[in-house]
């Protein structure tokens, strides 16, 4: 965590918050003005949180990515990205208040979301391997729907495990279950030291 904050502190500052730098070279993409509105809202919230940060807009056809940078970017991310997720949720609610022409707004900071996803997939593979090696079900930490979906997808083709979610709401967790089919097939049977599935 500290490492990340330091990295972010070294990120170049691109002018003070709320200074409207008119560097749009893609106005045609933002014909509905939602990207600019989203940026304005996010800047408004960040400054009222007393955070020294700038917001840049990256957009493609479907989504608008708001990139938070500056000395307080680490604080805008928060523990486990909770602050960043809350910012993203609220900016989406505000910008898509009316049903016409919804646009999905991603609030990111540098490559935070990318790295978060990669870490998640690596962790899932590690735990899946452990589930197979130890022949027992592994239950992960509770996590948001989006992260659970990513894990289900990334393990869909992982050999000898299945995944499912258990629990309600914020407490919903993924279980990684070694498939019973893995008992016979492989050549590794003679190496099995431990009874399967239960102790």
């Amino acid at each position, binding site marked *: 965590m500290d490492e990340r904050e330091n990295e972010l502190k070294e990120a170049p500052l691109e002018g003070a918050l709320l200074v409207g730098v008119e560097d749009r070279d893609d106005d045609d993409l933002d014909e509905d003005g939602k990207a600019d509105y989203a940026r304005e*809202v996010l800047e408004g*919230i960040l400054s*009222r949180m007393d955070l020294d940060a700038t917001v840049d807009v990256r957009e493609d056809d479907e989504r608008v990515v708001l990139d938070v940078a500056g000395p307080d970017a680490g604080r805008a991310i*928060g523990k486990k990205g909770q602050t960043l*997720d*809350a910012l993203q*949720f*609220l900016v989406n609610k505000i910008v898509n208040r009316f049903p016409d022409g919804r646009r999905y707004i991603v609030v990111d900071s540098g490559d935070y979301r990318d790295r978060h996803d990669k870490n998640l997939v690596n962790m899932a593979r590690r735990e899946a391997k452990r589930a197979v090696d130890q022949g027992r079900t592994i239950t992960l930490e509770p996590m948001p729907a989006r992260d659970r979906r990513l894990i289900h997808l990334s393990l869909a083709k992982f050999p000898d495990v299945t995944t499912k979610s258990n629990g309600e709401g914020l407490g919903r967790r993924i279980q990684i279950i070694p498939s019973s089919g893995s008992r016979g097939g492989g050549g590794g049977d003679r190496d099995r030291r431990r009874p399967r599935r239960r102790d």
Partner: protein
Amino acid sequence: MDQLAELIDYIARALVDDPEDVTVEAVEGDRAIILELTVAPSDLGKVIGKDGRTARAMRTLLSATSARMRRRAILDILE
């Protein structure tokens, strides 16, 4: 206006249909500040959200901000 109240006021006004009906009252306690948010009855759902998710997101930002000020803040949505 108190800075924390201003944060909630800004977000709430952006969320609702009737921003002029939004008020945030800051009640200073010994150990915590209580922010009493009122909105037009028709806008209640907009500040609470499905399963309380909007209210929860506001509280997350509120505690992130208040923690740095070494304060504790409670968001109370009045019905």
